[in-house]
């Protein structure tokens, strides 16, 4: 039935997702504020921001779970407001809840979602094998889903969400509450989907994960703050040389450095102190300032900027404005 529906612009666009001036107001609160972006087909697209930034609301509007207040969004060429049914069979959606039936077994969950998406018996068997293999659940087909650990549940939820092989997958905080190894495995799976031409839009607040994305949009308070590939973002927003140092008294060290007019973005990063310096300034300046104030440096080195540095920088600019 989906085949005779027509896409908004007729032809198949190069973009899997096109968003124009999309806004959502909840009462007087603006959750998403006139957002624009395009996602090319086959790309892993990261949607980054702190909690409450409007990530989930945006993704839920794209899935047809929330109606936009204004603006348009096309998913695989179909308007999310005018044609939600056409979108349903073309997308997969997985939320951080890993919404599975915990009182059903692994196999029963897969069969259920296969049946609901109208797959034939043979197709369900085929996909069942694929999902079990993909999620690493071989031999656990008859386990109750509720007894599985987070990583397995997460991969099974992904398998059920893409049982019908959609071309576009929305993942809302898919790695929340999952151990680091499972997180890593999960991103490998997303990479595999992308190689097969699947477009993935993923929200996260783990900035290290965003490095896996082809393109990123950073969002805060419902507005886009920055966008580009991870490399572009770092080049554009971090103009300092970054140094990391281990000192004997980090609390005092931070106070000392913050008092220096030339030290930018002084922060505590785990047990390390981080400081940004303009190109023309040398690391000697830092050593001198700390030693003068009786803070001993154990180790010091230059580091390449992370997306976290970009994010702090982007949000910092916003704070000044």
């Amino acid at each position: 039935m989906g085949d005779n529906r027509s896409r908004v612009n007729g032809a198949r666009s190069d973009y899997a997702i096109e968003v124009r001036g999309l806004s959502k107001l909840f009462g007087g609160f603006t959750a998403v504020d006139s957002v624009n972006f395009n996602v090319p087909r086959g790309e892993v697209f990261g949607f980054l921001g702190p909690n409450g930034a409007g990530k989930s609301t945006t993704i839920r509007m794209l899935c047809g779970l929330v109606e936009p207040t204004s603006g348009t969004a096309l998913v695989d060429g179909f308007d999310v407001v005018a044609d939600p049914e056409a979108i349903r069979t073309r997308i997969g959606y997985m939320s951080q809840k890993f919404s599975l039936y915990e009182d059903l077994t692994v196999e029963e969950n897969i069969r259920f979602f296969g049946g609901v998406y109208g797959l034939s018996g043979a197709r369900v068997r085929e996909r069942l094998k694929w999902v079990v293999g993909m999620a690493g659940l071989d031999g656990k087909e008859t386990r109750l889903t509720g007894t599985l650990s987070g990583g397995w549940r997460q991969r099974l939820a992904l398998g059920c969400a893409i049982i019908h092989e959609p071309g576009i997958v929305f993942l809302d905080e898919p790695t929340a509450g999952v151990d680091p190894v499972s997180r890593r495995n999960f991103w490998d799976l997303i990479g595999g989907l992308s190689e097969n031409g699947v477009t993935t839009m993923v929200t996260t607040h783990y900035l290290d994960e965003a490095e896996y994305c082809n393109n990123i949009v950073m969002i805060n308070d419902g507005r886009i703050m920055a966008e580009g590939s991870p490399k572009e973002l770092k080049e554009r927003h971090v103009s300092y040389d970054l140094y990391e140092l281990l000192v004997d008294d980090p609390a005092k060290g931070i106070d000392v450095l913050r008092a220096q007019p030339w030290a930018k973005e002084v922060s505590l990063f785990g047990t390390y102190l981080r400081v940004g310096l303009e190109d023309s300034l040398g690391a000697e300046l830092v050593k001198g300032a700390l030693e003068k104030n009786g803070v001993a440096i154990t180790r010091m080195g230059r580091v390449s900027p992370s997306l976290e540095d970009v994010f702090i920088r982007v949000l910092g600019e916003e704070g000044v404005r």
Partner: protein
Amino acid sequence: MRLRENAARIRPVIVKEFRQIRRDKVSLAILLLIPAFLMFMIGYALNFDVKHVKLAFYDLDKTSASREFQRTFLNSEYFESAGPLGAYRDIDAMLGSGAARAVIVIPPDFAKDLLADKNVPLQVIIDGADSNTGTIALGYITSVIQTYSSKLTADFLDKNGMLPYQPVELRPNIWYNPELASPKFLVPGFIGFILMLSAVVSTALSVVREKEHGTMEQLTLSPLNTLEIIIGKTVPHLVNSLTSSVFVLLMARWLFGVPIRGEIIWLYSGIMLFLLAALGQGMLISVFANTQEVAFMMSVLSSILPTFLLSGLVFPIKSMPLALQVLSNVTPTKFFIIILRDVMLKGLGPWAFWRELVYLAAFAAVTLGFSAVKMARQRNAA
């Protein structure tokens, strides 16, 4: 063709729902056995029959005639002796303490006046605090005295050479429930009450649980349409409730001797429509409630209160104020009870209760339809 597609999508929902019900052994037991257990409990607890009324006599005559008069009361199972009274003021203590429900004062010249063919006034004092029991006790006492009196009248006529004669003679002929046993009247009401409660609660909880776990969202994003979701969730609970209705009916028969005089098919068309109405009510609740706690409270309140107060189960609807009589139409149990009494006790068919069947069907259509519309709207604008 479309219909086959619909069925293909609904089937996995039904299969899944049955699996979940079967897997949750505790809930399944509760769902199937609690109704039968409730039947047992309420059936014995709620009994309007008044028997063994404690009766005391203040006998001022103390003759063999007065003692025989006392025995006519105590020989039946309706009365038991609360002991003789020695002084008039003891009546107060006896009734006040509840040791006796009624006291009969036999006047000093009871035997002598009767022999002299004189009118004998008899004082009967009744504890009216519990008006229901009091009324019934007075009825029993009146009828015993009338029987006694008419026997004396017959003796008097006979003695004067006349044939015993009674101008109007009462020959009661009670249909449907000859013993006037209250279980037979009440049990159909309990059946409605019990089925209502379990059907509403189980449906509402099963939908709200999916909301809480986020699986409802997954269903919303699937090609399932709202009606398919509702049908898929309703059918398994209908089957379950039908099963527990069999237990309840067997219970009613074995424990309380409530017969099924009418056709089973009419009985079950009534039960079927009633359960659909109850499932509709549960579905409606699940559309509004977002947590299982809220859904449970709403289900219990909306099924217990109207069913107990307004359905005619306990309080006759005809003696309610007009406003309440109108309000009584909100509960499908009212109409179901009428159907059950008609089929089970009177052996009637749909010609007698087609209006009630239509009402139940309409109630189910409205609640399920409204739930579908509301759910579809929530789906596209949350």
